[in-house]
């Protein structure tokens, strides 16, 4: 159980992250806003509660690792890292500008606090598993947290990894699926593109410990991660029911929110809406 004050603090952090995301993307012609907004609650719970990290020592050898396999949602991670003090907040203003350390897709060689370069979907699944294998080889008890998009589950590589990770008993690997039900060309839970069906059942069939929770419920996310950490012998997946573009009603639950610009008027509107939610926590 999480106490009320902590729960509220984590929700405030998530909304603060969302506000930074819309500000970042308002400075560039377009950015991956929808899928960034849908994972801020998860990032808040991870970075403020569960992950062993030291923002002053980003390469700390006993840290937990995070692989954002849906690498296009870099802006969500950048805002989180800046808010945690990995780098100055002003750096967020450089998103996608020439020579920036904050490119569209997460890049470990450019951004302090990013553990793995991602962008080509499906690949973070395997690199995360590779880190988990390495930790096991070295007898370390660190965890690897892996964030997958729901559309990303179309990639066969994810399921190759799923088969291998359970075989190798990677119980130090905890994956999340940002199940916001939308990919670029349509819904992920209908026959519009590729019907994902029962994601939990699929992972469970591959030998994973699978849970499904409301991805915007801080307490539910927290409990699911705690369960996953306690579960021994199998890798874990937590399917998060989320809303693409969460927090800004104009774009929420629309495929068009995947990548779009934010006009000055829209920025004002989004920030006001987020501030209202923040004020009512």
């Amino acid at each position, binding site marked *: 159980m999480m106490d009320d004050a902590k729960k509220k603090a984590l929700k405030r952090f998530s909304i603060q992250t969302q506000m930074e995301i819309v500000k970042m993307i308002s400075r560039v012609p377009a950015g991956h806003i929808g899928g960034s907004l849908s994972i801020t609650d998860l990032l808040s719970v991870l970075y403020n509660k569960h992950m062993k990290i030291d923002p002053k020592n980003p390469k700390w050898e006993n840290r937990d690792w995070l692989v954002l396999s849906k690498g296009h949602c870099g802006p969500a991670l950048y805002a989180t890292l800046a808010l945690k003090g990995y780098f100055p907040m002003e750096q967020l203003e450089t998103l996608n500008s020439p020579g920036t350390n904050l490119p569209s897709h997460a890049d*470990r060689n450019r951004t302090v606090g990013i*553990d793995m*370069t991602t962008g080509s979907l499906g*690949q973070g699944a395997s*690199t995360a598993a*590779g880190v988990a*294998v390495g930790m096991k*080889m070295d007898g370390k008890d660190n965890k690897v947290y892996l964030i997958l998009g729901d559309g990303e589950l179309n990639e*066969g590589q994810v399921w190759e990894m799923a088969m291998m990770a359970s075989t190798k008993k990677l119980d130090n690997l905890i994956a999340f699926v940002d199940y916001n039900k939308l990919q670029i060309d349509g819904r992920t839970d209908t026959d519009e593109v590729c019907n994902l069906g029962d994601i939990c059942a699929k992972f469970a069939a591959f030998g994973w410990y699978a849970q499904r929770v409301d991805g915007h419920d801080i307490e539910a996310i927290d409990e699911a991660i705690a369960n996953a950490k306690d579960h021994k012998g199998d890798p874990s997946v937590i399917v998060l029911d989320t809303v693409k573009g969460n927090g800004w009603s104009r774009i929420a639950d629309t495929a068009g929110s995947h990548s779009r610009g934010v006009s000055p008027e829209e920025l004002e509107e989004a920030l006001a809406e987020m501030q209202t939610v923040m004020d009512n926590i």
Partner: protein
Amino acid sequence: MSKIILSKERGKDVSDMRTAYCEAMIEMAENDERIVALDADLMTAMGMKPFAKKFPERTVDCGIQESNMIGVACGLSVWGKVPFAHTFGPFCTRRACDQIFMSGAYNRANVKVVGSDPGITAAYNGGTHMPFEDMGIMRGIPTMTVVEPTDIVMLKNLLPKIADQYGMFYMRLVRKGVRKVYEEGSEFEIGKAVKLSDGNDVTIIASGYCVAEALDAAELLKAEGISARVLNMFTWKPLDEEAVLAAAAETGAIVTAENHNVINGLGSAVSELLAKKNPTVMEMVGVQDEFGEVGPESYLRERFGLTAEYIAEAVRKVLKRK
């Protein structure tokens, strides 16, 4: 520094390249705990079972999933290991190309990708398994070092150097026996071509299977009064530009010889350099943009024109244009 002792007979070695690979991997792993081996259900074919037996905790057999294997290797390397990941050449370079590119090179990982059964040595596995394009695909990826060890002596000498040099490698590797070109005690440097014979009329720049053939060709040509320099360009990338430019300046004609498509291969690499720095008449011995096919090596070497006779003929042809 390179130090070369040439084999006089150049006969087929009695032991297999894979046996030497496994022995060298075990020796390296004994001295360096970062060394790990990955495979995609071909450890038996690759002769790596002794490694797996000795270091089970440092062996990852991913099953038949090359893309995931390369990704896992990349993750392991970012964690701090030095992974050697093997599968047949086509399945790492074609199937897992994007993983080698993004999880590997773009990510600045440190994986040694080993692609076996290069070109015609895939023999009875036939065209589906016969990579004539693997080195070309790999050399198009920034930061990749692309090498083709010639024989067991070179393989054993290069492996620790490949392990010690941080960065992505693609190494082509024949699994079975190859013709012996070097004697024990030879030393090689990654990125430095080896001059195997000197000559003034023409330079044959060869790699892998074609090195011994090039030396045979030089002997055929000597009988005709043609003096051929032979370079073993076992590193395709970075190319030893100094050696190529010296060959062009000093001999004025170049023939490349490779067990690979001439498009995007060794001939391409050499000609790209010469076109910019010193345009020189050239011929390219290699596969002329065709698919592989099934059959014994003795048939395939003739079918695709990779023998000493073809190399000698290319030399005669290029000299007419000099």
